[in-house]
């Protein structure tokens, strides 16, 4: 049984990592092609650092996803607090189901609907080249919000309601009690929400494809345009670097998280 499940996991991870392996190998390719290996070199890593458009796209993506994650984390945390405190169960259910729409809807429909909104609004005010960084940011915040809310809400529910009350009995203002008692308690949920929002925004292609305009190309859109022509392995080099960075971050996060859990026990 143990052997069987071991073999199963090998196959599973083989499947999940096969394309990543191909990507990493080709990034060290000495030749031009993305299909055949001809020698090993660091050539494409050098090319990548020379490729201004790719670097600009990477910078744009970071700017966009950090801003989208910050704003949606802020709005989402507030919203979670508000929703949790709502007295009317019906209102709560209504708000929650609206919140869930971007998660249930296919990305392509979300993207298109936002694009139609922007196009129509732009037509009304007569400023047509509306698609820009700002529309992209709005779209990203919109689809990140539900994920933030859904990671903060459970933490709020877990919290003992008598804690903030006790704080206020001891002379805290409501704001102080929120900042000093509740916020620290729900901060892991906020962090999870932030990381999820950042990841979703960083990786999004479908929604960005419909809501971005000239002059602000994110990495995924840049790759999409590039893939239509011959893909140069330098994009594989960049992806390999991103892969390495994420792996490193996850391992560090795992180590930190692991130690804390040990401490908590």
């Amino acid at each position, binding site marked *: 049984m143990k052997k069987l499940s071991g073999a199963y996991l090998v196959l599973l991870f083989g499947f999940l990592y096969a394309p990543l392996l191909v990507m990493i190998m080709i990034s060290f390719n000495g030749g031009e092609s993305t299909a055949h290996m001809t020698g090993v070199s660091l050539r494409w890593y050098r090319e990548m650092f020379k490729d201004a458009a790719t670097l600009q796209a990477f910078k744009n993506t970071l700017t966009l996803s*950090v801003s989208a994650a910050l704003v949606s984390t802020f709005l989402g945390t507030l919203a979670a607090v508000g929703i949790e405190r709502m007295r009317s169960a019906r209102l709560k259910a209504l708000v929650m189901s609206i919140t869930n729409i971007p998660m249930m809807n296919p990305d392509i429909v979300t993207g298109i609907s936002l694009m139609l909104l922007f196009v129509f609004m732009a037509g009304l005010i007569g400023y047509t080249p509306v698609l820009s960084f700002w529309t992209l940011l709005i779209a990203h915040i919109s689809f990140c919000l539900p994920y933030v809310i859904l990671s903060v809400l459970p933490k709020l529910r877990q919290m003992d309601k008598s804690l903030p009350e006790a704080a206020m009995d001891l002379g805290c203002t409501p704001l102080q009690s929120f900042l000093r008692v509740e916020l620290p308690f729900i901060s892991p949920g906020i962090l999870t929400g932030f990381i999820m929002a950042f990841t979703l925004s960083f990786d999004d292609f479908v929604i960005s494809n419909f809501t971005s305009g000239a002059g602000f190309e994110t990495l995924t859109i840049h790759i999409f345009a590039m893939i239509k022509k011959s893909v140069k392995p330098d994009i594989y080099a960049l992806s390999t670097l991103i892969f390495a960075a994420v792996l490193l971050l996850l391992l560090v996060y795992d180590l930190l998280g692991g130690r804390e859990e040990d401490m908590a026990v």
Partner: protein
Amino acid sequence: MRKAFAIAACLALSLLLIACLSACGRSDEVLYVYNWGEYLADGSYDTMDVLSGFEEYYEELTGRSMKVYLTTFDSNEDLYAKISGGTSRYDVIFPSDYMIDRLRTEGLLLPVNIESVCEKYGAECYYEYIGEDFRGLFYDPDDEYSVPYTYGRVGIIYNCTQVDEEDCTGWELLWNPKYAGRILQFNNSRDAFATAQYLLGIDLNTEDPADWKACYDKLLEQKPLIQSYVMDEIYNKMESGEAAIGAYYAGDFFTMLEVNEDLRFFYPENTSLFVDSMCIPKGSENPENAALFMNYLLSEEPAIECAEFIYYASPDALVFENEDYQEDMGEYVMEVLYPEDFHFAEELNVNGMRNLSPETLEYIGRLWEDLKISGGLPAGVYWTAAALAAVIAALVIYSFIVKRRRARWY
């Protein structure tokens, strides 16, 4: 601990954001260029980066800093969708002849005025080097809205290890069942329909729906043989030997040949030709900068760099008369790109694509979509899906019955 980590992470990321934003810097002027993919020398493969070249040129000329942003499209129809939607701002676009005609008649272009702009800024104007053959063409009779950039003809590329020489007679090669599953067809309506039009001997610019329908039927007949409808994906597929036959633009063949030596090329007896020109779309906020950019691309060094990078024929005398360029290209390339006794203007009148009436365009669009969505999946897919649906339905019903029974017990 966790909280400290969270705060540290947020702070670090915000700092990163600020760093990014400030690193972007502010330049006095921006120019949004919308071009075909890989259609400008961009600094890769030891070429010159013409975009930063222009930024320097501009700063020298006017004393103001300039930032050029490039985005790309891969068919005239995609370009039209973006421009007519009016959702994005562009300053320079690179449509082909028939699309210029369409954009111009729909009032979506601004006049270029390249000569007067150059005069105003005291720049040397290179427009005079554009060959006689490329002036006053049908899509822009007064040369008011466009500046030609490249031109070429469509030909057929094949892999000589997979295709017999004697089969390469003309357009019927794309319909040869011997090579089923290894043929590539254009993924844009006008070029794809053109292959069928030449095969059937139909005029490229017919307005008769019956003609278009006949071509549609021909393309539908071809569909089972097609490996893929492609635009620039053709590079990888031909280079790797994945596909054996494909029709594409002459210049691109040489880019593929650099990677795969087994590729061969020929022009069918009748074939379409195109000229890609630079235009300024309506909504451009600074048409003068756009004109300066065009002028810069016509000047000797960038023009040659671009022509060598993309392997398309250039209408710019500074390029095609340059001896170094001719030498770099080599005899064979020059022969294919600039054949003798080839008069572009005359050819374009016969084999050029024109803009068509809105009704015909709408009809072509529908036929094209129908072609793309015609034909189902292999029957196995439907059977599998049906079987799975049946199993799931059975499970659901079974669990309902169990639940009912249980409910009766308690």
